[in-house]
């Protein structure tokens, strides 16, 4: 036991309690910081000599306290769960947004959607049936047919626009992902260097974990612990960040909605072109690009083709005002020869006298054929029924996704609450810790004074006999 070992112990005590106060101060300063996990100083008692030997034996007591390690309190399993739940939540949000936009494009139930246009068209046919000799009634019918075609075209156009916008948003999202991935790689490098030389890198680790959670929400990434405190970022089996190397991602595939069938949009790694199975918002937007919007585009096309086919075949059996048989009403494109889709459905009849209202050839004023056409609205396989089915299935799909989103929001909130409970800063706890460190510091100071007095006794007052 050396002379000044007691002082040494007191010094380590002072230093350790002050470090504890520093860490408490850091926690209090960051109580409201998003993504901060509380830190705790790891006090280790330093023991005496426990190695047996023959000659250099000392019976010294322990040598003080060591406060080198400051550890970050965070539950890795909860983090992994949070990444999963945030990814699912973002994906469902993106899908619900896409479906909600489609609902707004169709505007049903209401008085301005395609259902209202169909109803007015059938009413127009009945008016012509009542007054086959009146050109104004026929002209009004042609107007209503044109409006119906225009309504179908504009609904399809808004779906096309939604597809283009979603693709643009996805590209912007991937730019953000690339930036975040590069930042994670840089942070990994800094953390690796700090950990290798024994310096604490807790704040850098917090920032990196926040970025990884963001990546989980945007692209469905998961974090995997690597060596030296680094975290590798993995998306669908492909490693985006391995230590300090980062891989970029990009969007490949069709650039317009028509090409989805042959070349579906997908997320690929930029140098390699390997497709990744993503999650999160990117997956939701991809689902909108590949499944949701094209499905409703095709169904609208089928509806337009059905309307054109039904009206054309029914119209061909009647006769116009001049006795001529009725021709095709709707055709595809300006020439009328392309297959009819919702994007190119056009009205081919422009002369009101050619509207075939009569079942009797030769120019008689019979309106029964127009009435028969108007009754097509009651057909169980007719346009009205198929349109209603489209709208109802859209409603069901949207309400299912919204309900799932609601449930997922509750789950995500619970996981976040658990994470906060482990890693969050409780001010009451910090206050109490501060009190303990304060008292310990004053006690260590007293210890210094006590040892100083004993040494003073030893140095200044021993061996002074007779002076």
């Amino acid at each position, binding site marked *: 036991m050396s002379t000044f070992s007691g002082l040494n112990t007191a010094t380590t005590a002072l230093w350790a309690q002050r470090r504890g106060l520093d860490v408490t101060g850091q926690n209090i300063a960051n109580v409201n910081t998003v993504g901060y996990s509380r830190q705790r100083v790891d006090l280790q008692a330093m023991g005496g000599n426990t190695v047996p030997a023959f000659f250099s034996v000392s019976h010294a007591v322990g040598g003080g306290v060591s406060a080198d390690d400051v550890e970050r309190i965070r539950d890795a399993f909860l983090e992994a769960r949070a990444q999963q739940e945030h990814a699912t939540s973002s994906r469902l949000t993106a899908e619900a947004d896409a479906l909600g936009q489609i609902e707004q494009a169709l505007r049903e*139930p209401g008085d301005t959607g395609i259902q209202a246009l*169909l109803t007015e068209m059938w009413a127009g046919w009945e008016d012509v049936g009542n007054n086959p000799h009146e050109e104004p009634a026929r002209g009004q019918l042609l107007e209503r047919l044109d409006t119906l075609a225009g309504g179908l075209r504009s609904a399809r156009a808004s779906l096309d626009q939604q597809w283009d916008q979603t693709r643009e948003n996805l590209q912007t999202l991937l730019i953000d992902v690339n930036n975040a991935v590069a930042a994670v790689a840089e942070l990994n490098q800094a953390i690796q260097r700090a950990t290798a030389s024994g310096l604490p890198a807790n704040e850098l680790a917090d920032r990196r974990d926040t970025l990884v959670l963001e990546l989980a929400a945007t692209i469905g990434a998961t974090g995997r612990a690597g060596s030296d405190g680094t975290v590798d970022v993995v998306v669908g089996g492909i490693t985006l960040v391995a230590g300090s190397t980062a891989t970029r991602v990009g969007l490949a595939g069709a650039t317009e909605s028509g090409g989805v069938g042959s070349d579906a949009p997908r997320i690929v790694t930029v140098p390699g072109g390997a497709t990744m199975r993503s999650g999160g918002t990117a997956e939701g937007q991809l689902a909108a690009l590949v499944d949701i919007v094209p499905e409703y585009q095709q169904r609208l096309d089928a509806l337009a083709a059905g309307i054109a086919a039904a009206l054309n075949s029914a119209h061909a059996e009647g006769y116009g005002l001049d006795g001529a048989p009725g021709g095709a009403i709707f055709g595809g494109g300006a020439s009328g020869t392309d297959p009819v889709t919702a994007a190119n459905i056009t009205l081919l009849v422009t002369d009101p006298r050619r509207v075939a209202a009569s079942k009797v050839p030769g120019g008689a004023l019979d309106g029964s054929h127009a*009435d028969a056409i108007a009754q097509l609205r009651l057909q169980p396989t007719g346009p009205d029924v198929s349109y209603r089915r489209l709208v109802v299935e859209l409603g069901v799909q949207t309400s299912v996704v919204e309900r799932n989103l609601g449930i997922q929001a509750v789950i995500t909130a619970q996981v976040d609450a658990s994470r906060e409970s482990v890693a969050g800063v409780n001010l009451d706890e910090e206050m109490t810790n501060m*009190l303990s460190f304060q008292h310990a510091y004053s006690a260590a100071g007293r210890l210094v004074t006590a040892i100083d007095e004993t040494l003073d006794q030893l140095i200044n007052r021993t061996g002074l006999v007779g002076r």
Partner: protein
Amino acid sequence: MRITQRAVALSSLQGLNRNLDAVGRLQQQLTSGRMISTPSDSPTGTNWAMQTRADQASVAQQARNISDGKAWVGAADSALMTMLETTRRVRDLAVQGLNTGSMSPAGAEAIALEVTNLRDSLLGLANQTLGGRPLFGGVTAGRSAYDAAGGWVGTDGAPVQRRISDTEVVRIDITGPEAFGPPGDDLFAVVGRIADDVTTDPAALAADLEDLDVAIDRMLTALADVGARSARIEHAEQVNTDRSLTLATQLSEIEGVDLPRTIMELEMQKVGYEAALAATAKALQPTLLDFLR
């Protein structure tokens, strides 16, 4: 479980958000007056609402058809009744002409002249138009059913019909041949023969009177037919009005918002929101700092 200040703040925020979300939804329902604003609010309700709207439009169209049909049938009815009056006058004149004993040639001339004039007026009534189409002309595209000489120029291949409900059409016209007889041997031919026979061959007037009676019976049958159709159309009108009322009620039940209930829910939600605000204020304030020196 360890609770931190931030956890309390977050959960208070989430609760307030949920409350405000409910308030916002109720307010949107009240201001728009509709419970269903998108198909996802209620897919089955959307289906009903769309079907009801389509039915409402067709019922309104059928109401228009019914009033148009009523006009036609009413016009045919009054035309036939007037023509019946005129024909009875012709019959009286014919009976008078049959009585050759007490008539002078000048009298016969006078009767012949009047009968001719009555024939012209009968032709005029038979050529009445409604909305630009001859009433008794069938589906002709021309302007009259009978020409000046009394020949039939209408087209009687197809009936003129109006749809009075989803499943019924009713015929609203009656063609000249159906009401007055086959061309060549119809009412006007008989009256013309009477006008000739009064001066030339009074004995043939007896046979002419029989023909005239046949024509009168035919017109009475036509009148009964028109009357029956008119009754059917009126009955359909009543059914149509009832149905449009039922559909409007149905639509408001599916889509419309229940005002008293929604206003009460909004009030309750507001009270809940205010309570949550007060609780948040009380829970977030005290910490250990207040109690330490």
